[in-house]
Structure formats: C-alpha cells, structure tokens
C-alpha cells in the first residue's frame, strides 16, 4: 500500500466529476429519493467506520447498537437536558465511544467467532435495556419528537434543515470530514499497527505492541463515528426506537461491507451504494414490492459466489487493466524477462 497517492490529471477530473455529482445529486432526484440519499450518506459513514473496526481482524456485531447509543444519547441530551443539537450530536458520539471502551474489557478477552457472538450479546443487552426501561429510554416506542438541527441564518439566506436537500449537504460535510479522519488514521502508524495485529498478532505482541489496547482503540474510534452517524440519523428522523438497531440492521451493515470488500477503504462504500441503488431504485422500479427481499437474497448469493473479494476487486482489476493499457506495470505484477 503506497503511503502517498499521486493524483494525476485523469484522477483530478474524476474527483471533480464526483464532487459535482455529489453536489447536484439532491436536485435531480424525487423527494422520496432525497430522503434515501440522506440515509445512504449516513450509511456510508456507518460502513466505513465498521471497516476500521474490522482492520484488527475482529468482526463486531455491536456496531449498529453503537450507532444507537449515539442516537439515544444525542436525542436525550437535546430533548431532556436542552443541549443545542450540534453539541448533543458530538456528545452522542463521545458516549458511544465510552460505551465501546467499557465493553472492550469483557469483549477483547475473546477472539474470532467468540468475539463475534460476544459482541452481539453485549450489544443486544444494551438494546434490550432501551426496550425495557421506559424512563428515560421510552421503552419499545423509543423517543419521539427529537428536536431537529437548528436553522442557520446567514443574513442573505436561511438554511432550513427540515428540507432533506439541505440536511443532505450537512450530512455530506460531516461524513466527508469523518471519512478523511478515518482515512488518515488508517494510513498513520496506528492504522498500520491495526493491520499488523490482524495478520500477525503474536509477532506484533513480541515486538511490544499491546494488542488489547489497539483492538480497544479501533473499537472505540469505530463506535465514535457510528455514534455520530446515529446522531445524524436521530435528528433527521426525529424518532429513535430499539427496533431500528436490531440484528436485522446489523446484518445489512455486514452485507454491505462484505459485498463491497474490506481490503480498500472504498470497498464498503461501493457495497452500500451499489446494493442500495439495486434495492431501492432498480427493484422498486420493476414494481413487485413483495419479491424485493427475494431478489436481494439472490443478488447477495451471486455476489458472494462470483465476487468473493467484493466489488472493490472489480475496481482493482479495472485500474490494473488501465495501467497495462498505458504501458505501465501494475504494482505487484510479476515482470517476466
């Protein structure tokens, strides 16, 4: 993995096109698709933070519950304690990180499959507590009428965040900033240590890396950003309830991540964008609303059978082919004399 990416002219054009597409997006789609766009952008943050957690080689099933912790904490702070919404969102993210730090102590005594199941149990306990205790969590109905993001008055224009298009820009800004932070973390010494623990945990421990602390760090950072995503979600939908964060939702996050692939930072993003478009746009356009889960299941099985390394492997193959076409040698290729 190269530490610095050199962006050439073609890359620059690509980035400009992507930026233009992201800015124009809410104005070329219908109102219901605008709502979808907001949720999709939030989900991009959910899967990308999830990928950071999996870098250490442990797959958590508590990620969506961490997102819920952020949502609940932010909702409670703004509704019951009167925090301003932006501050409540950050508090939500911090609370999610703290909960993850506490959970680390029992959970990182386990590894592999045991960690997977253990994290599920810990998350599910938290979720059932929200469901059981009406005060302060609202029980099965959850918390309703959560204050929205306050409107911004710039003098010459007022930005009202109840409009999904405006909220989309806010979410886009937060998500892009978070993605940049997550990317920098992965490329930093800390991120390289995560990789080292994944592939050679005994070896990295033998040179003095505290694997527990790094696993905990990855878990906490991922939970922080998941919590932020949850807070964005709560103040948009203005309601949170325990069922939004159940194992079904977690299964979807897992699917997006694995279908996209996890070896590159963009893999999970490809997964969530492609599967959401297939599910919500193409399958919805065909009609047959009842058959959608079935077709989704078929797509899932085909993806895992024929693209075991995820959608990102298509991108890698395409970029290798492009390099070969230009006469360059793709990195990692065997040069025969």
């Amino acid at each position: 993995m190269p530490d610095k990416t050199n962006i050439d002219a073609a890359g620059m054009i690509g980035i400009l096109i992507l930026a233009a597409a992201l800015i124009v997006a809410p104005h070329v789609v219908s109102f219901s698709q605008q709502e979808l766009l907001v949720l999709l952008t939030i989900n991009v943050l959910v899967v990308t933070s999830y990928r950071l957690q999996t870098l250490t080689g442990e797959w958590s099933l508590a990620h969506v519950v961490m997102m819920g912790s952020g949502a609940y904490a932010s909702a409670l702070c703004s509704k019951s304690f009167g925090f301003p919404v932006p501050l409540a969102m950050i508090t939500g993210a911090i609370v999610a990180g703290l909960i993850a730090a506490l959970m680390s102590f029992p959970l990182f005594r386990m590894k592999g499959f045991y960690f997977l199941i253990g994290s599920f149990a810990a998350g599910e306990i938290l979720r059932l507590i929200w469901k059981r205790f009406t005060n302060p969590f609202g029980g099965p109905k959850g918390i309703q009428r959560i204050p929205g993001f306050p409107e911004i008055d710039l003098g010459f224009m007022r930005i009202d965040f109840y409009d999904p298009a405006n909220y989309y820009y806010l979410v886009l800004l937060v998500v892009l900033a978070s993605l940049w932070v997550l990317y920098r973390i992965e490329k930093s010494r800390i991120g390289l240590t995560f990789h080292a623990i994944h592939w050679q945990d005994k070896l990295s421990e033998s040179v003095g890396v505290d694997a527990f602390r790094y696993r905990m760090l990855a878990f906490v950072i991922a939970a922080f950003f998941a919590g932020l995503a949850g807070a964005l979600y709560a103040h948009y939908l203005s309601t949170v309830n325990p069922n939004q964060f159940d194992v079904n939702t977690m299964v979807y996050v897992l699917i997006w991540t694995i279908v996209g692939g996890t070896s590159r930072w963009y893999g999970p993003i490809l997964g969530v964008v492609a599967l959401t478009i297939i599910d919500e746009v193409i399958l919805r356009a065909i009609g047959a609303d009842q058959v959608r889960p079935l077709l989704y299941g078929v797509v899932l099985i085909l993806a895992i059978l024929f693209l075991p390394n995820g959608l990102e492997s298509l991108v890698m193959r395409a970029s290798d082919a492009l390099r070969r076409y230009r006469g360059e040698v793709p990195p990692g290729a065997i040069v025969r004399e």
Partner: protein
Amino acid sequence: MPDFLLQTVFNASYAASYMALIAVGLVLIFGVMGVINFAHGELYMAGAYAIVFFYAWQGLPFVMAVGLGLLFAGCLGILMELALFRPLRTNPLGGLIASIGFLLILQTLAVLGFGLRNQNIPPVSQGRLTVGGAFLTYERLYVIIATVVLLAALWLFLRRSRFGWALRACAQDREAAALQGISINQTARYAMFIGAALAGVAGAMTAPLVAPSPFMGHGVIVTAFIIIIVGGIGSLEGAVVAAVLYAFVHTFVTTFFDGVIANIVGLLLMLAVLVVKPQGLFGVRERA
C-alpha cells in the same frame, strides 16, 4: 405454589425440547462444515409451513405431515450444501452471508405462498395430562417425546454407524478424515440433511402451538446461538444440556419477572460463559 412450580417445569421442558432439536442441528452443521447457518431459523419455519400445507390444507394425517416436513427441510438443507456451502467451503464468512441470502429467499417465498398473517392450524389433540393443579397438553407432550426419540436415534447413529463415525471424524479434523478415505462432500451432505431435518421436525411439531408466520425464525435463531455458545460450539451433548438450562432459566425468569428481563438474563449467561469459559460448558479446546 408447588402446582405453580410444576407448571413452570412443564413449560420449561417443552421449550427445552424443541430448542434442543434446533440447536443440535446447528451444532452438527457447524461442526462438520465450519459454517454458521444463519438460515437455520428459516428451516424451522419451512417445517412449520409443511404442516400448514399438508396437514391444515391437504388434510393428511399429522404424523405423515411431520414426516414430509422433515424431508422438505432436509432437502432444503442439501440444496444449501450443494449450491452455497460447497463452493464457499474455504470462505466461512462467505458461507454466513450466503445463508443470509438464502434466508431472505425462503422468507419471501413463505410470504408469497402463504401471506403475511399467522396461520391457524386445527389442534392435533385436545387432551391434556393433569398432575395435581398443573397440566401438560398432549400436543406439548408429543414434542417432548419426539425430541427424546430423535436425539436418542441421532446419538446411536453417530456412535454406532459408519456414517456417524465419518461425521464425527470430519467434525474433529477434515483433512485427516479425507486422508482416511472419507468423502467430505458426502459427509457434509449428510450433516446438512440431518441438521436441517431436525430443525424442520421442530417446526412441524410446534406448528399447531405457535401459529406459523414467515418471520418466526428470527427469535429462534438468536436463542439457538445462545444455546450453542453456552453448551460449547461443536458439542452435541453440550447443546442439549444448554438447551435445558437456558429453557429453565428463561421460563422461570419470564414467569417471575417478564420476557425482556428473561432475554437479558439469557444473554448475560452467554456473556459470562464467553468470558469465564469460552469453550462452553462442554466444549473441547478450540481448533487452531
């Protein structure tokens, strides 16, 4: 009070028996193929819908309908093995995802074929066993009897028959078993058939008691995971003991507090086992 306790014991025994059938099937599949079958709850659902179709709609005798449910779920299991788990044998996480895809397909097919509502099934028997002030309906008694018979048969099959030996050999070490001339594909097919069929029987036997719906597998799969962790992954005896333990704890806590607290206690039990003795109560040391 003793009547009340006895009643709770009856309820717990019923819950323990069908959960044991499901958990044992899940353990068998995990042991032999190393894959977590997320669609196991939907195989249970398939068994229940076999009763809806063959018993409630076609009017076949209940026992015959249960047999057809067993075959139907078992064949679905073989289909999963051939289409999904065999090509993904080197990719356990892929197997998990593929089984989620299969789960979505089965759920949608159930919705398309039978609708979203819960199905009512005419009772198989109205009678009940009365002991003091507590009672156990015959329908529940049949479930308990069927479980004991099937698990005893499975135990004999695994300990006494050549196929059983091959199955256990594969569960211990796949490569070594292959070196001894055991066909891994064939063994995986048997394991998948038996595991799925046990879930199908559990669904078929309990169908008249639970009013099947397309999403009935959800709650079951979570409970089954708790049971196989507490019992030790890969341990069939452990799964049975853990099913009994879990069912008694859950039923008693539900009776004295409420269902959500009971779920929390169940999960805490699993978490405690994972922290203190991750190989489970009966598990052997984890394979490297």
